[in-house]
């Protein structure tokens, strides 16, 4: 790869990252000098040969267009009556006492009005439910009284032998899997990752892997064309938010599938 091409790619990646950061963090979109960047991008255009390069070029242009849209919205907001200089607001907040801030809030707070009411139909449903509910003694049979002859101390080893405590906690197991996944690279095939000599171990690995994704230690990428599933580990656990709805991806880990992977 020529040096110029390499520099061009790095430039596009840098611009992409800048655009994404500006749109996410809500900073002034005019910090992105769109015209200057477009000129620079056009200079690298003749270097591109591979589809990946063109894809990167298109993606950068698309992000730049989003920045132009943000700039338009920014100007619209500045010219609207809603606009107040953030610095002025910050200064004012710092100078006002809690009591003054409370007074301001009280003048512009319109709380939602809600009511609660029990209707006769619901009361009847509750009575019926109560009448049909078996006594707790029937629902949760009492444990047989055990005679306690004496209280003695035990050790962790003894508890492990009796199967009362596990060798490692579930969280430890997940973290161990996370470390393994991170050590395998940036993008690891799901089937490769859970591959094991025994079916039981592979199933256990798949089970723990599902929690890696659910708890935000890694994410999944599905290549529908190649019918491949990849795991991408995160360097840090990602916090869950309620803005994005998670998607469940069912994966069958039948013995035949695992055998295919083992034989491959």
């Amino acid at each position, binding site marked *: 790869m020529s040096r110029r091409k390499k520099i061009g790619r790095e430039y596009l990646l840098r611009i992409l990252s800048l655009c994404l950061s500006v749109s996410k963090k*809500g900073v002034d979109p005019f910090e992105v000098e769109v015209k200057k960047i477009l000129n620079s991008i056009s200079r690298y255009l003749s270097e591109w040969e591979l589809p990946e390069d063109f894809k990167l070029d298109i993606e950068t242009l698309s992000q730049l267009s989003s920045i132009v849209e943000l700039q338009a919205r920014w100007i619209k907001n500045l010219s609207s009556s809603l606009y107040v200089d*953030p610095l*002025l*607001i910050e200064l004012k907040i710092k100078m006002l006492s809690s009591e003054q801030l409370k007074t*301001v809030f009280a*003048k512009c707070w319109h709380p*939602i009005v*809600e009511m609660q009411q029990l209707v006769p139909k619901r009361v009847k449903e509750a009575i019926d439910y109560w009448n049909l509910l078996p006594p707790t003694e029937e629902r949760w049979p009492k444990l047989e009284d055990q005679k306690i002859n004496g209280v003695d101390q035990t050790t962790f080893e003894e508890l492990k032998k009796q199967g009362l405590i596990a060798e490692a906690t579930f969280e430890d197991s997940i973290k161990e899997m996370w470390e393994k996944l991170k050590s395998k690279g940036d993008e690891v095939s799901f089937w490769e990752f859970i591959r094991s000599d025994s079916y039981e171990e592979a199933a256990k690995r798949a089970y723990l892997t599902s929690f890696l994704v659910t708890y935000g230690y890694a994410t999944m990428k599905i290549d529908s064309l190649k019918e491949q599933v990849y795991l991408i580990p995160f360097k840090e656990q*990602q916090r869950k938010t309620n803005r994005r709805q998670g998607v469940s991806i069912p994966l069958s880990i039948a013995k035949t599938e695992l055998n295919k992977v083992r034989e491959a």
Partner: protein
Amino acid sequence: MSTPSYTNKMKKAVQMLFFRRHRQPGVKGWELKRSLGRDYMKVIQILNNRLRDIGMKVKTVYEDQTNREKPTREQLEKARFFVTVSDPSAIDTLSGWRVDDIAALTAAVAYINSKQGKAPRKEVEKLLKEKLPNWRVEKTLNMYIRRGYLDEDEDKILFLGWRSRAEIDQKLLSTLLLKQPTE
């Protein structure tokens, strides 16, 4: 204007708007349309006139977080409708909130609003830490997120939540803040 048909529809609208049907209060436009018919906005208008006399109003919060003069049919169907108190001066107490909590909420909402609706959590925390102890700032911000006043994304950027958009007059908040005399 309120014929028997509209009176019945208005009663139905009152039930829908006052009694919570979902985890969040309020009703979506399409739900009102399904129960009240195509002219549901006319019913809401009549109800609004009645509510005004007792210090309440129907507040419409649009999905794209903007205030609209002339919303389209689709925007109305996707919007959420709430009943709110129209005159804040009629409220004697602030529902048992601590003064600190209200002050911090006012600061956070005003700051995020001035930053075009979103600001990094760290910036908001820094602002609040000027007046609140560190441990309290995190706890308070999490409380606002739980109650729907603020919203946070995976990049730790804070936005105004659905409750702020329904309950707080943001324009008035900024104006009053700037007008407040400093000590």
